[in-house]
C-alpha cells in the first residue's frame, strides 16, 4: 500500500502559512481568521490520518467459459475503518471486458461487507487471472490518498469459440480399431463396397440373393469396415499476422479446437503439435479427456520469437504416428514451418494444409514501392501454394469471415482427385 499527499494538502498548508504570517506582518487579525480554518482542516486531517486496511475476496461463477460468453465475478469488500471514498478497479486482462462500470466509487463503512457483482465478457481465448482489485481511498478531508491492491487472482480458462464444421476430412488410411470412418479396404462393416463370388468360409448372411439369382452361382456382398483414424493437428506457432483484435494464431486455435472436438466425437484419435519457438505436443489419443487436454494445450499456444532452426527431427516420433492424417494450420510466414510441412509430405504423411490467410491483417500500403512489395509478396505466396499442390498436398486459403465448412469442403474436393505419393 502507498500513501501520498494530494496537491490540495500542499496548497492548504501554504495558504495557512501565508495567512498566519501575513496577519502578523500586516497586524490584521482578519487574515489569521481566514487562514485558521485551513490550518485546522489540515491539522485534523494529519492527526486523524490512518491507512485503511482493505480486504477483498473474490469468487468466479465458472472456472471455464467459452469465448464470447459471460462469466460473473463476485467481489466482497470490507475495511477496518470507514472509507468515505473508495475507488475500486477490478484488474482485468485485455481479453476480459467488464459489462458493469469499472472502476466504481463507493463509501465503505467500517465492518460492513460490500458485495459487488461484475459480469465479464470473455472476448478472447486464453488462460487468464481475475480477482485482483486495485483500490484508491481518500481520507474524509481529501488531503491524503492511499492506494493498494487486494484480493487473490483466480484462474479463468476461456476456451476458443468453435468453428461450425459438419463434414470432416476423411483420411486416406484408417487404423485398426473400430470407429466411424469408412475404411477404403474391405472387411466386416455396414457400407456396401462390391460384389464377389462366394468362397468357402463366407457367411451365408452375406450372400447377395439378387446377384446370385441373376448369375446362377452364389455371390456375396463386400463391405467397407468402420475404422478409426489418427489425426494430428499441426499448428504453426513460429509467426503470425495480427491486428489488435484478431490474429492468424486465433484462427488456427479456433479451428484446431473445433476439428479436435469433431474428430474425437467420431471416435478418432487426435493429437496436437504446436511447432514454433517452443515445441508442444500431445500424442494421439481418443476420448473426452483428450479433448480437454487438447483445448488446455491450445490455451498455451503463443508466438515465441526464436531464431533457432527447427525441423521435423525435433518432434518426438510417436507424436506423428504412421498413416495419420496431418492437418496443418499455418499462415506460411516462416520458412521453418514451410520446410517442415514439405518434409512431412516427403515422408509420406497424409497432409492437408489450411493456410490462414495473412492478407486481411497486412495493409497493402500507400506508396508505389509498398504496393509493389505487396504484390511481389502475394506472388511468392502463390508460387509456394503451387509447390504444395504439385506435391499433391491440398492447400486451401482460409480468410477471415469465410466459414470453415467451405474450407474443409475445398480440401475434400482436392483430395477426391489426389493420390498419395510414396517417396
Amino acid at each position, binding site marked *: 500500500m502507498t500513501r501520498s499527499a494530494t*496537491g490540495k494538502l500542499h496548497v492548504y498548508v501554504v495558504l495557512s502559512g501565508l*495567512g498566519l504570517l501575513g496577519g*502578523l506582518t*500586516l497586524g490584521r*487579525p482578519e487574515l*489569521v481568521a*481566514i487562514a485558521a*480554518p485551513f490550518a485546522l482542516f489540515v491539522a485534523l486531517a494529519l492527526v486523524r490520518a490512518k491507512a485503511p486496511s482493505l480486504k477483498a475476496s473474490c469468487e468466479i461463477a465458472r472456472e471455464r467459459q467459452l469465448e464470447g460468453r459471460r462469466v460473473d465475478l463476485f467481489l466482497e469488500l470490507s475495511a477496518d475503518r470507514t472509507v468515505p471514498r473508495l475507488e475500486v478497479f477490478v484488474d482485468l486482462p485485455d481479453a476480459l471486458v467488464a459489462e458493469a462500470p469499472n472502476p466504481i466509487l463507493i463509501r465503505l463503512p467500517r465492518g460492513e461487507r460490500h458485495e459487488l457483482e461484475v459480469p465479464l465478457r470473455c472476448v478472447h481465448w486464453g488462460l487468464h487471472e481475475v480477482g485482483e482489485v486495485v483500490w484508491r481511498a481518500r481520507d*474524509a478531508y481529501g488531503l491524503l490518498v492511499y492506494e493498494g491492491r487486494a484480493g487473490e487472482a483466480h484462474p479463468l480458462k476461456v476456451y476458443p469459440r468453435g468453428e461450425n464444421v459438419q463434414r470432416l476430412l476423411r483420411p486416406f488410411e484408417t487404423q485398426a480399431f473400430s470407429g466411424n470412418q469408412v475404411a477404403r479396404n474391405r472387411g466386416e462393416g455396414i457400407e456396401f463396397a462390391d460384389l464377389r463370388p462366394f468362397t468357402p468360409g463366407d457367411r451365408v448372411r452375406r450372400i447377395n440373393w439378387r446377384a446370385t439369382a441373376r448369375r446362377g452361382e452364389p455371390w456375396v456382398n463386400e463391405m467397407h469396415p468402420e475404422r478409426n483414424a489418427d489425426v494430428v493437428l499441426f499448428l504453426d506457432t513460429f509467426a503470425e499476422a495480427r491486428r489488435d483484435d484478431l490474429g492468424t494464431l486465433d484462427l488456427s486455435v479456433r479451428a484446431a479446437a473445433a476439428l479436435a472436438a469433431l474428430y474425437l466425437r467420431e471416435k478418432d484419435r487426435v493429437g496436437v503439435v504446436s511447432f514454433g519457438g517452443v515445441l508442444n505436443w500431445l500424442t494421439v489419443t481418443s476420448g473426452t479427456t483428450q479433448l480437454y487436454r487438447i483445448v488446455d494445450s491450445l490455451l498455451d499456444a503463443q508466438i515465441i520469437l526464436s531464431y533457432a532452426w527447427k525441423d521435423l527431427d525435433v518432434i518426438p516420433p510417436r507424436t506423428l504416428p504412421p498413416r495419420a492424417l496431418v492437418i496443418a494450420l499455418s499462415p506460411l510466414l516462416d520458412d521453418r514451418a514451410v520446410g517442415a510441412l514439405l518434409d512431412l509430405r516427403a515422408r509420406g504423411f497424409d497432409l492437408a494444409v489450411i493456410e490462414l490467410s495473412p492478407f486481411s491483417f497486412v495493409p497493402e500500403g500507400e506508396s508505389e514501392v509498398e504496393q509493389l512489395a505487396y504484390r511481389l509478396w502475394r506472388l511468392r505466396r502463390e508460387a509456394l501454394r503451387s509447390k504444395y499442390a504439385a506435391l499433391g498436398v491440398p492447400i486451401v486459403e482460409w480468410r477471415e469471415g469465410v466459414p470453415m465448412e467451405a474450407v474443409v469442403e475445398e480440401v475434400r474436393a482436392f483430395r477426391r482427385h489426389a493420390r498419395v505419393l510414396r517417396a
Partner: protein
Amino acid sequence: MLALGLGGAALALLAFGLLVRWPGALGLGLAALGSEYAVLFAAEGSTLDRLTPVYAAGLLLVAELAFWSIERRVPAWSEPTALEWRLARLGAACVGAAGVASLATVSAAAATGGGGVVLEGFGVGAAIGSVVILALLMRRLFLR
C-alpha cells in the same frame, strides 16, 4: 483598483487551474483572493471586519469545490450516498470554518483593548507555532 486587479487575477488563475487541472494555479488563485481581502480591509481602516467568518467560510467553500473539480474522475458512482456524505461534510466544513473564523475574530476584538508586548509575542508564537506544527505533522506522516 488593486483589489479589483487581484480579484480579476484570482478569477483567471482559478479558471486556468480548473481548465488544466493544476492545483498550483488553484492555490495561487486562492492566495490572490485572500490578498484581495487584505487589500480591501487595509484600505477601509482599522476596524475589524464583521464579515470575516462569512468570507472565511466562502473561501474554504471555493477551495473545496475547486479541488473537487480537478479530482480524477471515476466514471460510475455505485452509491448516491457517497455523494450525499461528501456534500454533508462540505457543509459542515464551511460551518466549522465560519465558527473558527468567528472565534479568531472575537479573540482579536477582545484583545484589541488590552494588548501588550506579551500578548503580541504570544500571538506571534502561536502563528509561527501553528505553521511549525503543520510542517511537523506532514513530516511525521510521510517520513515514517
